[in-house]
């Protein structure tokens, strides 16, 4: 039997980190959100769909750096494009020609969009999107789905740490798939709502993913038109994994603004906000800048990544691998007398155990899988990348079978 992984160096490094970094590791990458003690904390390297942690443990990786790695780690085409750009420099006084090329490429690729602005992280562009919507409509309120994640800016950040009530005073929530509730909010705040921001499908942490109900997205689109409200599609997590033209093509709706980040440049720090022509003037009035927003190597990497996604028909392959994983996990669970729910689209799958709302079995399953070389998060959706092949999925299913046996033995059902 293969020796189970241990995480001694991760733990030792975390102790050092905790002395000088608040929380040791901040945000969703903090060990508390996974399985502390049974999950890696610190990275060493990655290649293809394999990720190596600081202890030297190698995993078939389904976290993909929480989404950015869409082609696979160290993709030679992307790395070479970024390296080529770096030879001339990284960040300059002004943008390079890459900025214009990338904006042109994205406007040509993403359907219905006429302009593009760049940031570094998803939060940069979701914040910019709502500000552009406010400028365009001259209104204050933002309507979002309860439990949806749109980044770590004050208006949408989880929790209350560091926030004051006025940070989220103009943010209203409604339930996913309930267009009537959204309409009620629009009516209640008639003339004061700037935008509705949604993810193309609902992918909350700590829960099953929920696809849009028939007519839900088109209902929202219709409501936005009727009330003069901007519809923003936050495609940061799902973008380029469902349809290169934008997830709104996959789900057949027409947003006014779309936001991208994760899978855009295969791990390079860049994000983009795209919008329709009639919002361009308003967007130009929002002062949107950051020291590294114009860094050229990331833009070169994005250009190369988008070209590779097209050339390889990556979405089709990832869909196929995702389906194999989802069906295989379902069968493996069933064979072990367990019932699981596989949710979300095949390229962004997630699994929960049936009739369990406290995630204890998920936590145990993920911890055991990590000790056996497969990285599956217990609380957050997973990501398929182009480098995942059938052999990797089969190896994953073999490990999953062992883990299901452990769950069955320990929890009974």
């Amino acid at each position, binding site marked *: 039997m293969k020796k189970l992984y241990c995480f001694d160096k991760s733990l030792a490094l975390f102790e050092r980190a905790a002395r000088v970094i*608040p929380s040791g590791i901040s945000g969703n990458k903090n060990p508390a959100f996974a399985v502390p003690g049974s999950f890696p*904390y610190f990275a060493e390297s990655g290649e293809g769909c394999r990720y190596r942690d600081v202890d030297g443990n190698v995993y078939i990786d389904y976290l993909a750096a929480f989404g950015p790695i869409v082609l696979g780690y160290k993709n030679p085409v992307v790395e070479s494009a970024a390296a080529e750009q770096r030879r001339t420099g990284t960040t300059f006084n002004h943008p390079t020609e890459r900025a214009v090329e990338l904006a042109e490429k994205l406007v040509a690729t993403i359907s219905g969009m006429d302009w593009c602005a760049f940031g570094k992280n998803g939060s940069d562009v979701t914040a910019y999107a709502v500000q552009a919507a406010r400028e365009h409509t001259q209104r204050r309120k933002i309507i979002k789905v309860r439990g949806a994640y749109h980044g770590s800016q004050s208006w949408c950040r989880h929790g209350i740490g560091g926030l004051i*009530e006025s940070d989220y005073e103009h943010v209203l929530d409604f339930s996913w798939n309930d267009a009537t509730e959204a309409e009620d909010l629009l009516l209640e705040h008639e003339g004061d709502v700037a935008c509705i921001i949604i993810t193309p499908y609902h992918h909350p942490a700590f829960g099953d993913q929920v696809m849009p109900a028939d007519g839900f997205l088109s209902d929202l689109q219709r409501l936005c038109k009727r009330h003069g409200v901007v519809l923003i599609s936050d495609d940061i997590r799902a973008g380029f994994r469902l349809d290169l033209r934008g997830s709104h093509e996959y789900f057949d709706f027409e947003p006014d603004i779309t936001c991208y980040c994760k899978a855009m440049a295969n791990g390079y720090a860049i994000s983009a906000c795209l919008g329709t022509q009639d919002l361009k003037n308003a967007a130009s009035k929002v002062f949107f800048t950051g020291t590294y927003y114009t860094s050229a190597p990331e833009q070169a990497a994005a250009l190369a990544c988008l070209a590779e996604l097209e050339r390889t028909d990556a979405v089709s392959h990832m869909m196929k691998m995702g389906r194999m994983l989802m069906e295989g996990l379902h069968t493996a669970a069933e064979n072990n007398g367990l019932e699981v729910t596989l949710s979300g689209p095949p390229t962004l799958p997630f699994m929960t155990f049936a009739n369990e709302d*406290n995630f204890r079995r998920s936590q145990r399953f993920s911890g055991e899988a990590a000790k056996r070389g497969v990285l599956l998060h217990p609380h957050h959706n997973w990501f398929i990348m182009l480098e995942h092949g059938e052999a990797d999925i089969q190896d994953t299913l073999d490990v999953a079978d062992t883990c299901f046996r452990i769950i069955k033995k320990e929890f009974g059902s």
Partner: protein
Amino acid sequence: MISMTSQGRAFGIASPVLQWMGLDPSPSIHDRIRAGMHLFAVLPRLTDVVRHDEEGRRIADKMRVSIEFRVLNGPRVVLSFADGRIKTRSEGKSDLGLLFTSCAQLNNMFDGRKVLPIPFKGLHKAGELSRLTRLTEILTRYLKPSDTDMQSPRFRESHVEMSLLVGLSATQQIALQDPRAERIANHLPNGTIQYIILDGPACHVVLEDGLIEARSGTIADPTTTIEIQDIDLAVSLIKGEVDTFAANGSGAIKASGSLVLADEFNTLFDRVGHYLQ
């Protein structure tokens, strides 16, 4: 359920009259929350004094009275002493009543300052107040222990359990009254959280439809389990000195089960320190 008297009116006295009398008709949120915590999180720990302390038990055995603490234009609570046990309720009759003219006055008393509440009924039972005073002195000893007391492992364990119960119970006032926590409190999930201190006591919290109840001991099949490696860490945690995310990562605190519940509740728990020392 905690009942609060309505704003601006108490005992039928209108706000302008209260103001004319030099009283505070609309206490600050801070004072209100502290008063609520003192009455509904600290005072109920007298039941634990009876459980943990021999002298406390002897005193309670002799008491058969219900004592009301009422804040003018603020909360009220009744402590019932019978058969050596103490029960806390926010409604119903009392034999003896103490009126505090403001939340601030009540808070001053709990902060250890000299305060003279107004006895408004049951003067013939005023003798019971000296026993109550002694019980509260014992409670204070457990909640604010001396270094000498803390040398005793048994005392330390009692101190930690009572302090933890105060902190956990106080979250109810945060959920009800703290404007900064409203965002969390409005969507607080139902469930149970088990706190286990590995070399010490266990407590648990039951959250149901916005009501939060903290109890000592364990509960079957909790929604979330939080294991704290030792009493020292628990003491630091109660004082708000612990980076809980770092402690989780290092394994000093082990949270399992619903982390959503743990996270949301911890947001309330974290705020208790802004009101109670």
